[in-house]
């Protein structure tokens, strides 16, 4: 495939890996966090960590939008989905996220009208063709997907579609990163910055990471050569005593981001004072809700939701995994009570989660020789 294969060239990959090997100081260990779940997925899909020296460890960050939704939030969505007049719509990977009693896939089997959609506009289309039903879109995602939800809400309002509403669980990327960096047991040397989010927010919002916390960040694309090059750039900063934000993904990410998208988000959304993240707890101003002008389309106001906080399962150590304090396999329930089929924790839920990725792909990555 043209314009894709060029970024997957194995020979260039080996050359970059050799540069990384050369940059890694003997005896020093490097922990680099890839913030975005998309990066985690690429790393496992292409076996990128196989090419890295043992002393460079990739830590999978909090950037999987499905994984971070807490159980109480799933329960709230479930309460809406189980109303007979409601058609509840969400992205496919939300279907398996555990609530306190069941997930959406199980609720669907029990009779709730829950439908997978590929875009919020599909949900709006369902609303138009079912005028006698209430159609609710369960919106998740970082700044990457928030603009498309915002545009859908604008269109719903402009067209006067009254049987459509949105349960907004959009989150923002900077507050959880700050929370991670503030945590005393954090052990990270640098960050692979989230490429997709940065296409919207730009590079500027990440300047505080080198500025306030002294850790380099390189905004990265998602092809294997992108990721290797970003790791090389981080190690090169560390080797040369530099510390700044660099943009490896210049072909897509402008420094200022996507200004029209940011404008429409500002019109439709406002920050929630607090939002609970699975595994990370409450983080101030880390999520979006519908602004006052759009409150008539807010499903949480239109329908009654329990709004009960459900504690993360005690045995689950997702928080520590996300901070890079422990590796997935070091969690007490990893692979036994908590598996991709029956996930307890956030990191096991979506294929982009750190534990699921390790469970599915990582186990034999280090065994170079097959018998």
């Amino acid at each position, binding site marked *: 495939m043209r314009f894709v294969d060029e970024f*997957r060239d*194995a020979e260039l990959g080996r050359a970059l890996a050799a540069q990384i090997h050369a940059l890694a100081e003997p005896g020093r260990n490097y922990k680099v966090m890839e913030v975005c779940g998309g990066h985690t997925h690429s790393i496992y899909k292409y076996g990128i960590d*196989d090419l890295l020296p043992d002393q460079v460890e990739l830590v999978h960050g909090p950037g999987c939008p499905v994984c971070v939704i807490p159980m109480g939030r799933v329960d709230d969505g479930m309460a809406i989905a189980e109303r007979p007049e409601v058609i509840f719509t969400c992205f496919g990977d939300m279907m398996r996220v555990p609530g306190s009693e069941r997930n959406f896939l199980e609720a669907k089997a029990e009779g709730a009208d829950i439908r997978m959609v590929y875009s919020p506009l599909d949900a709006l289309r369902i609303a138009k063709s079912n005028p006698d039903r209430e159609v609710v879109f369960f919106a998740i995602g970082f700044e990457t997907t928030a603009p498309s939800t915002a545009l859908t809400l604008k269109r719903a309002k402009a067209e006067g579609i009254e049987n459509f509403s949105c349960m907004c669980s959009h989150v923002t990327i900077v507050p959880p990163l700050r929370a991670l960096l503030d945590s005393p047991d954090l052990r990270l040397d640098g960050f692979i910055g989230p490429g997709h989010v940065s296409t919207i927010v730009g590079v500027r919002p990440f300047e505080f990471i080198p500025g306030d916390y002294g850790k380099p960040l390189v905004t990265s694309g998602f092809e294997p050569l992108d990721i290797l090059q970003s790791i090389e750039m981080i190690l090169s900063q560390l080797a040369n005593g530099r510390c700044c934000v660099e943009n490896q993904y210049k072909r897509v990410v402008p420094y200022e981001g996507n200004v029209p998208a940011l404008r429409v988000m500002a019109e439709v959304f406002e920050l929630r004072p607090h939002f609970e993240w699975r595994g990370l707890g409450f983080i101030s101003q880390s999520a979006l809700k519908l602004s006052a002008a759009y409150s008539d389309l807010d499903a949480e106001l239109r329908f009654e939701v329990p709004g009960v906080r459900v504690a993360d399962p005690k045995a689950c150590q997702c928080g520590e995994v996300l901070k890079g304090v422990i590796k997935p*396999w070091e969690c007490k329930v990893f692979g036994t009570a908590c598996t991709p*089929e029956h996930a307890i924790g956030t990191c096991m839920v979506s294929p982009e989660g750190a534990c699921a990725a390790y469970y*599915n792909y990582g186990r*034999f990555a280090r065994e170079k020789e097959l018998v």
Partner: protein
Amino acid sequence: MSPAARTEAGREERVLEIIETARSKRPRFKDDRITMAHGAGGKATQTLIEGLLAPAFQSEALAELGDAGAVETNGARLAITTDSFVVKPIRFPGGSIGELAVNGTVNDLAVSGARPLALTCSLVLEEGLSADELRAEVEAMASAAEEAQVEIVSGDTKVVERGHCDSMYVCTTGLGRVDDRAALSTRAIEPGDRILVSGPVGAHGTAIMLARGELGLDAEISSDTRSLWPAADTLLEAAGSGLRAMRDATRGGIASALNELARASGVAMQVSEGAIPVLPEVAGAAELLGIDPAYVANEGVLVAFVAPGAADAALAALRSVAGFEEAAEIGEVRSEPPGMVLVDTAFGGRRVMDLLAGDPLPRIC
């Protein structure tokens, strides 16, 4: 390695061992209700079959978990199989439910080394279905049967109220005679065997996905539905007893087929990602949708395991059959770690190719 690092490596090893033990146990069916995941061909389907059906029916032939069961009578070896077709939409580029219903069952026989003899056909029709649509599907079945040289000898019809089925469902049962050259078993695969795939993968599932029109994506991709008997016949002729096992790579794609057989034979498989044939348009659609063609359903692709000495001849023979020119060798069987399928990525890394836990797309066949 420092002592601390060694202890850590040991701990990781132990955790991995616990997981492997848990995985190699027969799965138990503990779910409260059937969800769409149970029909997806991944882990939930495996749990349903190995945890509920196989233990209840207690059949040696069933426990083999082949695509067809073997029955012996008066020295004749017969193979019997059955399949239901609920695909949505019922017509799609390259085929339709009727054609699929014939080829799907013929293929389950073919990969069991059985020459298809006869089919039965059971129709579940929704009240209100147009007679023209029904007629078109019946004709599609007739011509697929003629092409596969198999007779439809018996059948049944039922009609259910509107809304109780989606247009029509088709159930076919197939009877075949196990070929004298065939010594196939899902448990016969040995380290050193070569893994062949009969053609480009992922076309059927991708065609269905696009035909549903939910993705706003347009590409000229046709289902690969076809009879696999010519391919099976050729492999039996070229490899003889060197042909260990074959599998029809339908739901869950070649990834699921490889995993099922790695488990059944207690072997590891090493697949080279770059060697798996994928049509460029399928690769493009899969890229856009973020799915791996290895997990996408096929309706005319088999994987075959051939002893090393017979592999080259088998592949060359397969490539000479019309429709299978792009057959390829994609990997090799190893002994450790048993039950696992590992992929060498085209980029130079390695990863596990596991069964899917979720459901990429329901009702593809």
